[in-house]
Every structure is written in C-alpha cells, then in structure tokens.
C-alpha cells in the first residue's frame, strides 16, 4: 500500500536532485515531445501514447526531454499525432502513433537523433 508518509520520503529524496534538473529546464538543449490531445487525438488513442512516452523517458532516465500535450494539430485523420522539437533541428511530426512504436522513436530519434521516417507525416508523400 502506498502511503502519504512514503510520498514525504520521496519528496526529500527528490529535492536533493532538483537543483541539477532546474538548470536543464528551459535551456536550449531540451527536446520536446508534444502529443495532440484534443477530442480527435483522444478518440484515436493519444492517452496511452502520451503516457507511454512519459514512461519510456522515465525508464531510460533521459534528462533534457519533456513530454507535454497540445490541442488539435489540424490533421485529425492522422491522429494520434506526436511532434518532436529537438534543439537545432526541424520539427518532426509522427502520425498514427501507437504505444508499440514509442520505444523505437525514443531510441532512434530522441536518443540517437535519427527520426523514424516511416512513422512520420513525410512518409505520406512517398
């Protein structure tokens, strides 16, 4: 059973690490993963996609990576849509994302800098 006492202990531990993290947030080195979470995205399955990215980033203990949400991106038929903004790179838009694609996007793109083109909106024109 999780208790509030346990949460207090986690807090004490986390506070020790926070100073190092804060200096990273907001800096130009942050890669942002943004998931479309309007009605269209949610209906298409964006919730497990967003949670999956958060879990994967935590599992790999990636620093300088944030996962957040946005409204309707305007291509509802391709939801769930995920946009990746890496520092100094052009935005990459992933379409029809599913939880099973997440590990590869994080490994190839977020960690190693190579977008998984077959999952992106660019693949549509090929």
């Amino acid at each position, binding site marked *: *059973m*999780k208790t*509030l006492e*346990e*949460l*207090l202990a*986690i*807090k004490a*531990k*986390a*506070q020790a*690490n*926070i100073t190092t993290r804060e200096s990273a947030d907001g800096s130009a080195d942050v890669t942002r993963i943004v998931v479309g*979470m*309007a*009605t*269209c995205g*949610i*209906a298409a399955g964006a*919730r*497990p996609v*967003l*949670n999956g990215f*958060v879990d994967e980033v*935590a599992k790999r*203990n990636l620093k300088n990576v944030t996962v*957040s*949400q946005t*409204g*309707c*991106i*305007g291509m*509802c038929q391709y939801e769930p849509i995920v946009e990746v903004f890496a520092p100094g790179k052009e935005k990459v838009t992933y379409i029809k994302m599913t939880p099973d694609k997440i590990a590869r996007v994080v490994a190839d793109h977020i960690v190693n800098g190579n977008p998984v083109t077959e999952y992106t909106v660019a693949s549509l024109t090929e």
Partner: protein
Amino acid sequence: MRELSLNVLDITENSVSAGASLIEIDVLEDTKSKTLSIIIRDNGRGMSEETLKSVKDPFYTTRTTRKVGMGIPLFKMAAEMTGGSLELQSELGVGTVISAHFRTDSIDFTPLGDIDATILMLITMHEEIDFVYRFKIDENEFVLKTADLKAILGGVSFNETEVRAWLKDYISEQTQIIRGGVT
C-alpha cells in the same frame, strides 16, 4: 470514444482551456439503481447563455483548426444512448458544471475504462490546477485532492519520476479498494 474515461479526459480539457484553477471530477456509481454519474465542475470563465445553447451542437466549436466540435455532443450521445442524460450549467465568470448520467444496465452503456490513467494524466499535465477527484461506488468513496499532495511535496513536481510512479500506484490501489478488490 471507446471508454467513458476518455470522454472525461476530453471534457476536462475544456475546463483547462477555460482557465480554471480548480476542477472537481466526480465519478459516482450506484449499483442498486444501476446508475453512473460523472460530474465535472470548474471555476473557469464560464459560458454565456448563447454559447451554452450552441455547445451541444457538433457544428459549434471554439477551435480554429476545423469547423466541428465533437467533445460535448459525443459525451451527450454516450449518456443518452443508455437512457440517461447530460446537463450543462454555466455562468460567465463563475464556472461550468457538466453532469452526465448513465444507466449501467443498458446494452449501450460504454464502460468507464481506465479512469485512473485519465486522472493521472490530468493532474500531471496540469499541475498548476487543483483537482479534486471523487470516485464513489455506493457507500465507498476515495477522494484525491491534489492541493493536499502539493502541500506534502512542497514544490517537488508530480512529474518527478518517483512521484509520478507513487501517484499512479496510489490512485490504482485506492480505486481498487473502492471497487472491492483485494490489494
């Protein structure tokens, strides 16, 4: 939507967009009368009577990327299909209350689904907002007030890996107890 919990996520995002600082989400099930009520209450900017009339219309939306708004119509349809109803009250500058009532014994009842995932997502993605979540089945109730958790955490974010993991387990354990399961 495949799960009512996805409608809850979607509808609550409207409260976020309305600039609410406090959002209350009630999920109340009565197994005797076979009803489920979902009530989402916010202190956001509210809607005028005119807007209030139009939001149930799928061809009304505030979004600019396309011309239809399906959030409330879908939620309303999910309730009405079961023989239930949806009510919307709102006042400019005060806030909005949306109440959906479902008959759980209807063949058209959409299951609640992973409400824990919806709550976890809302509270971690919108930390600046205080949430009060009530999950009640008959006499058993679990109440989560994020303001209480923030007081304990004293500035440590819900998105710290260990904090988020604790929240996830805590919510699932507490709702499991209300559902009558053994943990």
